């Protein structure tokens, strides 16, 4: 139920008084309500749940998380090499 999918905002507009947007989910385009993200702009990535954009996705935070795990992987392979030697 709390499934939320990341996508890219490609167009922002008003519809019946609501701040709405078009979102590209990597090929599939859908409409979502942008009412809770007043600062979102075209090009931002957002997480969408039941036609409602919940938050802007932070690319730098994503990179940081991945980097920490990559370092872990490198340490892991060094340990393995150590074990073999």
């Amino acid at each position, binding site marked *: 139920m709390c499934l939320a999918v990341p996508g890219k905002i490609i167009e922002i507009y008003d519809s019946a008084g609501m701040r709405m947007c078009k979102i590209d989910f990597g090929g599939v385009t859908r409409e979502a309500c942008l009412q809770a993200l007043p600062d979102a702009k075209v090009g931002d990535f957002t997480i969408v749940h039941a036609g409602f954009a919940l938050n802007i*996705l932070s690319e730098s935070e994503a990179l940081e998380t991945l980097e920490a*795990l990559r370092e872990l992987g490198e340490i892991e392979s060094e340990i393995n090499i150590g074990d073999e030697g």
Partner: protein
Amino acid sequence: MTDTFALLNQFRNAELVKAGIAEIHRITTRHWAIMEICGGQTHAILRYGLDELLPENVELVHGPGCPVCVTPLELIDKALAIASQPDVIFTTFGDMMRVPGSNRDLFSIKAEGGKVRVVYSPLDAVKIAAENPDKQVVFFAIGFETTAPVNAMSVLQAKALGLKNFSILVSQVCVPPAMHAILSAPENRVKGFLAAGHVCSVMGYWEYPDISQKYHIPIVVTGFEPLDLVEGILMTVRQLEEGRAVVENAYSRVVSENGNIPAQELIKKVFEPCDRGWRGIGEIPMSGLGLRKEFADFNAETRFDVGAIKTRESEICIAGQILRGTRKPPECPAFGTLCNQDHPLGATMVSSEGACAAYLRYGRSRTGISENKTS
């Protein structure tokens, strides 16, 4: 420029998942029961086989974070009674269609000619109401904090459009009171929590340090990709092994401490905290959201008089114990036989977030709690 879709795909990178799993193996010295609260995470864990990659001593306990599963039977019977009325278009998320009420489900009402429509968003239900002024349109507004803003938005939108034929049947529940209920239960085995990432994207995690301190339990905000889950489990085990109990965020690309303030304001504008019954668990004080008085016109429970409702639960189904994390699906005598996805006895077999449905779909037919080591 980084291709963000490619970047996000990295959260399914098998090598990084393996590195994280190896680290969990390396640091685990004893048995830990960790609860993932969200049913979406339960499905992701089983789908990617993460439960089978973890050390035997790291046991994942599946939490009650499946709104379809915890919606009280009485409310489902009410939904069925409303949906059977003429001149009603009953709209719902697809998951609710097969959830068994006392005697039948929404699907059978649709088969009998009732106007039941599956919608992607409650805002679609508002559109249906605008297009069908001679019908009463009801949306079954179930969900956790993730779904509360869009459910609130649908009411505000219906009000702004002056619609008199739109109402919602509310079963909104909140995560923190459920965490308190789980941790204070005498049979509790949970030693760490993976907090539900999308609930936190709305609410933040400022409510959790109190829980973490009170019960001395690590709480790690966790996402839904395999790497997110491995990272969340790793951070939880690390805390447990070091004797720490704090709140950490393993889903920082989506979740901030304060969450989405405008979304929280939408919730507060339309809903207020109230006591709520959870199917299989019972009533938890102030664990739900109900419509504020000024939006009473949009409350389907008062708009439709469906008379007294007499509920009847399956006598075999152990969904309640599964939702509390005290038993696992294969321990149910009906699992995969009398109860299956075509003929579910309980909601946990229906939903795409229910633990029973996940165990059956991904072939975990043998593992029960009795087989897990306890210490």
